[in-house]
């Protein structure tokens, strides 16, 4: 099998974040991970990956603005020829920094909002940040960056999609991503409270479609349906080890954002190996390449080369085996678990909600302690 280059490089520069979002995909064990890479390490990673053919660069976290060397990393990446996307909550952005990032060669800023209203934005992120984000949106426009607004949707805000789109229009966004929560990390802990009902989802899609028809080509709106409501899995990462390489704050190399959770995957670290060895030769990056690892029903499925069996992390979380078919697929023998989760969400939506667990360093330690005495939920 011929292996192409890691075209998409994501550097999760830090797990530090001023927000405490309930749907964060960062690992709940984030407090346990090692020290952050130093500037020189990140620069070496940028050079090694670029020489292999990486060209789309994401800088995220955590909150990447927490890194004081962000401007230096952007300048290096720009000199190397990357297209550079900063994925940020906006917290920590100032006019001085946004100007410095522009001069360093930053191409694009994706700004996240948690909702269209101050109250819900601030509640969901457990902070008071709405006004600040609106100011950052104005700065993004002033400094002539393409603006993508990203809003993660779930049961508590999906009914505000119309207001969210109007907010994006007022702020001058060219692209809006309405990304339904994917259930990993902190979002997995809160799944029962976050999964929307089918009626909510249908309404939100209708509102989005009407908005698209009104604005025409001025704005592009992406609506990412939650996996759990599909009957075929997404082609997650276009197959692990195909185009996507993420580096976690401690230097761990990941074939997808959430792969840290997969048991038995001995993830290599850029402190010990160069990017070429990691991408082409490490066991972790080869384990789910191609189709040899697949089990039935994927192994003989005519759609296996299209969806690559779906998401390995979802297979693991819901079935206990990362090599199983993604149970989102109705051909999976475990599909009933997805159906049951949706039914449970419908029931809970009508009942009294349980408390949410906000992403937090101290809670991460507590979650880790709980995991050590109880098996992971499935």
């Amino acid at each position: 099998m011929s292996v192409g280059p890691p075209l998409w490089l994501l550097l999760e520069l830090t797990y530090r974040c001023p927000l405490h979002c309930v749907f964060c995909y960062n690992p709940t064990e984030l407090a346990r991970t090692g020290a952050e890479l130093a500037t020189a390490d990140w620069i070496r990673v940028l050079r090694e990956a670029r020489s292999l053919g990486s060209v789309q660069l994401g800088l995220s976290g955590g909150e990447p603005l927490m890194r004081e060397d962000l401007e230096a990393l952007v300048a290096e990446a720009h000199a190397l020829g990357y297209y550079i996307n900063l994925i940020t909550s906006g917290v920590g952005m100032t006019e001085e920094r946004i100007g410095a990032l522009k001069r360093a060669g930053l191409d694009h800023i994706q700004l996240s909002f948690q909702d269209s209203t101050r109250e819900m934005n601030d509640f969901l992120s457990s902070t008071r940040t709405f006004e600040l984000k609106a100011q950052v949106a104005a700065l993004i426009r002033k400094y002539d960056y393409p603006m993508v607004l990203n809003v993660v949707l779930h049961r508590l805000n999906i009914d505000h999609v119309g207001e969210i789109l109007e907010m994006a229009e007022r702020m001058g966004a060219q692209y809006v991503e309405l990304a339904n929560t994917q259930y990993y990390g902190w979002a997995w802990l809160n799944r029962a409270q976050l999964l929307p009902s089918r009626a909510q989802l249908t309404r939100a899609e209708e509102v989005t479609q009407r908005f698209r028809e009104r604005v025409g080509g001025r704005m592009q709106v992406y609506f990412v349906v939650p996996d759990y409501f599909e009957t075929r899995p997404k082609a997650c990462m276009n197959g692990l080890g195909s185009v996507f390489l993420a580096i976690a704050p401690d230097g761990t190399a990941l074939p997808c954002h959430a792969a840290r959770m997969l048991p038995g995957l001995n993830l290599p670290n850029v402190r010990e190996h160069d990017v070429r060895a990691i991408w082409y030769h490490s066991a972790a990056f080869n384990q789910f390449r191609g189709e040899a690892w697949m089990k039935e029903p994927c192994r003989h499925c005519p759609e296996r080369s299209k969806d690559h069996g779906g998401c390995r992390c979802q297979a693991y979380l819901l079935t206990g085996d990362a090599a199983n078919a993604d149970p989102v697929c109705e051909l999976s023998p475990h599909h009933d678990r997805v159906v049951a989760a949706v039914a449970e969400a419908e029931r809970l939506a009508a009942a009294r909600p349980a408390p949410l667990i906000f992403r937090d360093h101290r809670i991460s330690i507590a979650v880790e302690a709980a995991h050590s005495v109880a098996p992971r939920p499935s």
Partner: protein
Amino acid sequence: MSELADTARPAIARGLKLQWEPAQEAHVLLYPEGMVQLNGSAGAILSRCDGVRTVAQIVADLEQSYGATGLKDDITAFVTLALERRWLELRA
């Protein structure tokens, strides 16, 4: 979209980048969180869209470079498509 004038000056849209990628042996168009790998003729056309040259000049340049004639319709159709997709914009 109205018909493309010979005197129009197309340019890569702001916020996008066009570059040659040796690893892909292709021109690629880069935009927020995405990338299009271009075939040879698309790469040849877009790499001449610099906001200075007119459509007529781009056609003449390509016909000379490739020793061909009668390319105008194909080039105009592609530039029109690229404008619709907002890969290109017109400069004054």
